[in-house]
């Protein structure tokens, strides 16, 4: 059983690493985003292999289902990045310098873990045949509302602020928003405009009921 799991782990890990390499090497931005999705999915599979079912499902739900869609939308709505052969931000020795700095920063982050972590920890105790789930949904939820309540609330406030900010940015004044009129509405408006002087520009009127009368050019000219 252990060998089978090792083989499966090897395959999934190869997928994750290969996809991650492709993300940064491929020239087409959309292809890079798709490789990134493959990478996320592989990480979800790794969680599943660790029997952290909830984490795996949330990984797929949040990263594959939402974040990647967001990335694809961002690419699609940004001009001039979808083509191949886009110029890289830096080149020559600066590229190497950038690579070295990022590698150094990553090493600073990962080194304490690599050195201090105790590898080969024994399997969690439990009756043979029924391994304990690493973190069930109930345990995670309880930890959120008891142990990590402050962090949970701060994250919630942060997300709410982001949501409100997005609405404020995207909000459009009603006066500036125009929609395409239906034929019946346009006809009704034209009729009112064509009258000599409308009675003090009515503040508003309900959308007129759709009328079957077609607009003829002569009728409007009156």
């Amino acid at each position: 059983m252990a060998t089978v799991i090792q083989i499966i782990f090897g395959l999934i890990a190869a997928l994750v690493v290969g996809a991650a390499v492709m993300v940064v090497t491929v020239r087409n931005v959309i292809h890079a985003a798709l490789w990134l999705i493959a990478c996320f999915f592989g990480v979800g599979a790794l969680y599943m292999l660790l029997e952290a079912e909830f984490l795996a499902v949330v990984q797929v739900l949040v990263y594959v289902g939402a974040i990647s869609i967001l990335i694809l939308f961002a690419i699609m709505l940004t001009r001039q990045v979808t083509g191949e052969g886009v110029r890289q931000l830096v080149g020559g020795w600066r590229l190497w310098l950038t690579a070295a700095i990022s590698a150094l920063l990553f090493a600073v982050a990962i080194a304490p873990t690599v050195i201090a972590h105790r590898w080969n920890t024994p399997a969690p105790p439990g009756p043979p045949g029924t391994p304990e789930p690493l973190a069930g949904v109930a345990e995670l939820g309880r930890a959120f509302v008891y142990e990590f309540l402050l962090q949970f609330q701060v994250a919630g406030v942060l997300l709410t602020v982001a949501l409100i900010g997005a609405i404020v940015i995207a909000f459009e004044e009603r006066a500036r928003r125009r929609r395409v009129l239906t034929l019946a509405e346009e006809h009704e408006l034209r009729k009112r405009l064509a009258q000599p002087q409308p009675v003090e520009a009515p503040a508003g009127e309900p959308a007129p009921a759709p009328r079957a009368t077609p607009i003829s050019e002569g009728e409007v000219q009156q």
Partner: protein
Amino acid sequence: MYDIVNSLINVAFGWGWPGWVIALISHLAVTTLLFVIAPFQMLFLTYYERRAIARMQDRIGPNRVGPAGLFQPIADGVKMFTKEDIVPTAADKWVHFLAPCVVVAPTMLMFAVLPWGPGMVPADLNVGLLFFFAISSISAVGLMMAGLASSNKFALLGAMRAVAQMVSYEIPAVLSLLAVVMLTGTLSVVQLIEAQAGLFISSADVPGIPDLGLGWFIFTPVGFLAFIVFFIAALAEGERTPFDIPEADSEIVAGYMTEYSGMKFGLFYLAQYVLNFLLCAIAAVIFFGGWQGPGVGWLYDRAISPANPDGNWVFNVLAGFLGVFYLLAKTYAFFFVMVWVRGAFPRLRVDQLMDFGWKFLIPLTLVNIVSAAIWVALLRWGPEQGITFTQNWAPILRWGVAFVVTLAVNVAAYIALARIFAAAQAEQGRIDLDEYRDTLTATLR
């Protein structure tokens, strides 16, 4: 399945194979079975939909191939296979090729947690319900790939519409399920069905009444509202008619499928119908008890199960057949409602779709979650949770008070939200003459 294969290989033949080989064989067998069932469901559903919609439009529908036109879907399948596969020159070849696979694969994976009958579930994950919706959100990536790779305006528009619709209607669907999860306290689909045994008047079992398998959540106010919202969201996720703007053929040809032909188009079609089948089935499982129904519980008590190892296998077969029958009957009834809605309603506009999802369904589900909390507090909580006044009430009284309170909350929320929503829509539909004065007078000259 594991037990059957194990007894066949290790006990009957005595080969003594290791456990993982047997697990592999049994899972492969179940998977193969499901992969065979899925296309047949799709074939049957296309026939069913065409016949039903024809009845509503005063036609007969397919009736030439085979008895009563039953083999029409097979003829269509042959036609799909023999058509030429065209890839546009400007298309992104690999992404264009992969997109149908990415759309079909998640729908097949969703079968993994669907229970067909008592003890008949391919994989009983303890987060099965969440798995179902997480996996279904992957197909949005496939739709996006199809739209981007086709290098066609209609395909891109269709993909954007499809993805925007799926992402926004996932929220009311998941929130409405959250209310049901609060009622049961579990995310496992199997336990969800087991919680719906008993009798519908009370989740707190009345003694002396046999298990009729009718404790469906649809009979509680919380479950009813959740079901309505979930079904509307399912219509949107499955791109059924009032929400079929991603492939509105009178506006944008066929949406993201525009540049696909032959079997690749067939795969999109397959994915859509299998997804519809699965959404109907999961609605039946969550709100209508899945395989629960009169008689299944009685039969399964006498069958071989982990709780009762010395049962009779005949009852296994009988309980399985009856359970699958109940599940499929409910599923096809929901699919009929989908067809019915298609026959009855016109297509929504994009802004109407978004407004309805975000401004009406989501607030409604949030209120529903609050009333689910009230339900749980009145029915299950006692002094240790801080609810003392229900301590001496009889179970029936508790149930009745909870029913009335949640019903009142839900109905009040529905009426208030419907009024606010209608007022907002009327405000949006208002046309100011002054705003259009310039444009209109310019065209007048």
